[in-house]
């Protein structure tokens, strides 16, 4: 999940830096699959974040970190939604 999300953010930065948005490459649609997959994975991870507390999977610091990553991913995805980057809105 985090890798997928960061891959999208990184590819978006690269596309902007090389000026590819003036002439969008044909594979641009594929890049937008990444945030959708990340959203699905984040929901999945969110369920496990709750279970990790409920069923005490890990030591406390690990649980806190896992929950922080899921929350950060959720905020980042909400920002992608605001900027029309979540979903195919070409």
């Amino acid at each position, binding site marked *: *999940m*985090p*890798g997928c*999300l*960061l891959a999208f*953010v990184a590819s978006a930065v690269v596309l*902007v830096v090389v000026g590819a*948005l*003036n002439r969008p490459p044909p594979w641009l649609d594929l890049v*937008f699959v990444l945030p959708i997959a990340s959203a699905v994975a984040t929901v999945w*991870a969110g369920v*496990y*974040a709750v*279970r*990790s507390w409920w*069923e005490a*999977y*890990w030591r406390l610091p*690990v649980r806190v*970190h*896992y929950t*922080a*990553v899921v*929350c*950060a*991913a959720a*905020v*980042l995805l909400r*920002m992608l939604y*605001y*900027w*029309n*980057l979540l979903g195919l*809105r*070409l």
Partner: protein
Amino acid sequence: MSATATDMAQFMLAHLNGGAVDGNRILSSEAVDAMHRQWFTLHEQLDGMAFGLQRQRRDDVLVLRHSGGVPRFASDLLLVPELGLGLFVSCHNGNAFDAKAAFVDAFLDRYAPVDEPHLVPDGRPARADAIEGQYRSIKVTERPTYGKLPWALFSTRPIDVRFEADGTLVTDTGGNADRWVKVEPLAFREDDGTITHLFREGSVTAFEPVSWYETMGIQARLAAITALVVLSGAVGWPLGTVRRWYRGGPSLSGGPRRAR
């Protein structure tokens, strides 16, 4: 569409000479008149749009204008029909927008100066708190595609609106600040008293207020912080797996494994 500065000069001369230049007619004089009149305005007190040209008044002198640009490139076309005056300017490089704006402002101040009346602000208006804040072009806020972010970053600038203690209204577009003094009550849409749009002289588009968390500064910080935390997961989770494998400890199973 691309054109050379020489061609733009011919085009402007045709507009200033009733549609003909050097005996060659490209527009009827009626067409020129029709192209210069108002076709649309955001508000009846603003001069609005002519046909492809933005109208504005310098005192009573009509200025027709079409500006444009892409990152690192900015152009402007100005016609002042009453004075038989035209200007076409193109700038490139990082500060193209500011360089062009400074040149056009200086040109207009020299050839179509505005007699600035001495206005005295009458204190902070009652609704100042509701008015202050950041406004963003509807070219960004209403954009339904992924171009929203590139437009916000590279093609438009937000307007920061604030009042000074004496009631002077300041509209600041990235260091380019204009100061306004109220000459009549500010207009509000009366339905629920919220401010929905900002219109200003000299701008073709309307602006919408944005919440504090939608301002670019907050969005950039939030993106950086959340990306770092997500990065800690992207690096930390596989590292944890490797460490457990290296130490020979029990690997995760069941729920904890599926969680990653």
